[in-house]
């Protein structure tokens, strides 16, 4: 996909004045990241597509309300995505339990395509446990590992301090370790 270098501040100004081309540039820049986030939070390709579209529609309708108060535009987008995903979970009468085999395996960036056709059993188990974690802990892991964000960046999105994110991360790892205790994933001999 062609990448056009642009000054995000200028593009944001134009987009907030109703310039659809400018918003289109923002869309191209953030579509992959938002899709990744929603995909891992829903575990469902169809809903990920639907919610990603809604994130950008909502952002387009409210971009004039976006003001840069030290919070990057990406954080604002993630917050929209977070709210929509939370509503999506709330709308379901019971917590979604997707049979792990039904979760589509999408090609990972940088890997050979054939390598992605099969997800290892260990990864399936771990993904299953991650989906059982409370929403904010799932957010944290997705932003940290999928998006490679720092604790400070995650804090900006989640509205928490860097220390609080670090503490939450530690508690999340402890919870995962305890859940994985009886599983085939060995944490002690690696």
């Amino acid at each position: 996909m062609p990448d056009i270098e642009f000054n995000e501040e200028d593009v944001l100004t134009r987009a907030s004045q109703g310039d659809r081309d400018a918003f289109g540039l923002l869309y191209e820049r953030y579509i992959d990241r938002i899709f990744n986030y929603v995909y891992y939070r829903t575990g469902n390709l169809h809903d990920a597509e639907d919610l990603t579209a809604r994130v950008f529609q909502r952002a387009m309708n409210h971009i004039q309300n976006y003001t840069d108060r030290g919070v990057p535009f990406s954080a604002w987008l993630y917050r929209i995505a977070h709210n929509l995903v939370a509503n999506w979970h709330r709308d379901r009468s019971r917590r979604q339990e997707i049979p792990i085999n039904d979760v589509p395996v999408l090609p990972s960036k940088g890997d050979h395509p054939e390598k992605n056709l099969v997800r290892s059993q260990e990864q399936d188990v771990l993904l299953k446990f991650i989906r059982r974690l409370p929403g904010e802990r799932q957010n944290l892991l997705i932003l940290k590992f999928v998006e490679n964000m720092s604790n400070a960046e995650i804090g900006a999105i989640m509205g928490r301090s860097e220390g609080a994110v670090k503490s939450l991360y530690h508690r999340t790892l402890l919870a995962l370790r305890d859940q994985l205790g009886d599983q085939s994933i060995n944490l002690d001999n690696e």
Partner: protein
Amino acid sequence: MTRTKTKLSDDQLNALEAHLAGTLKPVTPPVDVVQRLRDRIRFPQTVEIASRLRDWERMFFVFGGVMSGMLVIITVARALYYLVGRK
């Protein structure tokens, strides 16, 4: 509960992080999904935006060229009028 420890050893931490990094990898949204999303929100593609920008550049040069040409014609006409028309 077999594990009640509230601390992670360095080995456990590294192993768990390695497993998480291997599981939570960035994925590429399918091309058809990106295209459908673009259609749904009705954004022009990046290439369209880029070509539109190039069109504007071309239009600017064409307009500038026409204006310069007209100035040259008017100047020549005035010179001819001055040299010939006055007699």
